[in-house]
């Protein structure tokens, strides 16, 4: 079984040059940075907020905040990691406003009832995603990941969807590397468990519901 390959973000060769230019007020250079990462920020924001309008706001607010605070970007990390950190914080603020009275924190170490060993071990069809239309599959995947606590799904999205390394994810979320690994494992196992009912092999072959 081969290792999962990560799809790390765009080229970084001239990125520092763009950041330097943007720092001197070159808005076009900053516009290029927006072009590189707006899709990623939008995806992350929607995964956290579950709301398209909020995600649009997060894209704007995160990039504006990044622009205004570029002077504080020291270049010790990738610009993208620094940007993701800003975007995650903006998205969490939106989520807190949308759900007042409910704690929304990345520090929570959630124990849920399906958090232990896998309960259901059912093999899946060879290409489970092909049993559904694109629209059905998107609906299944969206509803499934939305069921995870924010602290789990944010780690999963940064690490497995956006392709940040474990260290970059830890930096973006201000978590320790062991905390990222622990949450990632549990997020992956919980998603797998929840997808079982859609993807497992059924007697008689065709598993479409």
């Amino acid at each position, binding site marked *: *079984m*081969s*290792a*999962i390959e990560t*799809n790390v973000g765009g080229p970084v060769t001239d990125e*520092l040059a763009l*950041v*330097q230019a*943007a*720092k*001197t*007020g070159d*808005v076009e250079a*900053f*516009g290029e940075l*927006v072009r590189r990462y*707006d*899709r990623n920020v*939008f*995806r992350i924001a*929607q*995964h956290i907020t579950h709301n398209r309008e909020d*995600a*649009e706001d997060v894209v*704007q607010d995160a*990039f*504006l905040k990044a*622009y*205004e*605070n*570029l*002077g*504080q*970007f*020291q*270049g010790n990390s990738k610009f993208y990691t620094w940007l993701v950190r800003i975007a995650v914080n903006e998205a969490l603020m939106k989520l807190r406003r949308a759900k007042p009275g409910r704690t929304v924190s990345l520090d929570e170490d959630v124990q849920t009832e399906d958090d232990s*060993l*896998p309960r259901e*071990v059912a*093999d*899946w069809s060879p290409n*489970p*995603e092909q049993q559904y239309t694109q629209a059905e*599959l*998107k609906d299944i*995947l*969206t509803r499934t*990941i939305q069921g995870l606590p924010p602290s789990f799904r944010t780690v*999963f999205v940064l690490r*497995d*969807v956006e*392709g940040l390394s*474990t260290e970059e994810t830890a930096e973006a979320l201000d978590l320790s590397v062991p905390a990222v690994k622990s949450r990632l*494992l549990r997020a*992956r*196992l919980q*998603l*797998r468990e929840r*997808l079982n009912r859609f*993807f497992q092999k059924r007697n008689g072959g065709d598993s479409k519901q």
Partner: protein
Amino acid sequence: MKCAEFLQELTNYLDGVIDDRTKAELEDHLAWCHNCYVVCDTTRKTIEIYRDSKLYELPDDLRNRLRSAIVSKCQGRRKPGPQGV
């Protein structure tokens, strides 16, 4: 190796960040433990399906609108500070 120990290493195994000896132990476990093989295989598929899913794509028209708004607002704001980098 017990199943619980296997699961503890599952993330490192799937990410390919594991030493050769531990990897050999995990694969030895996978060879005879069907349950762990299925969990490992379906977890890997879970990751791949989400990675390939294209959930929440940003449509081009919205993308252009957002970028124009961001750039226009940046032009109206003060220059970022020169410090850093």
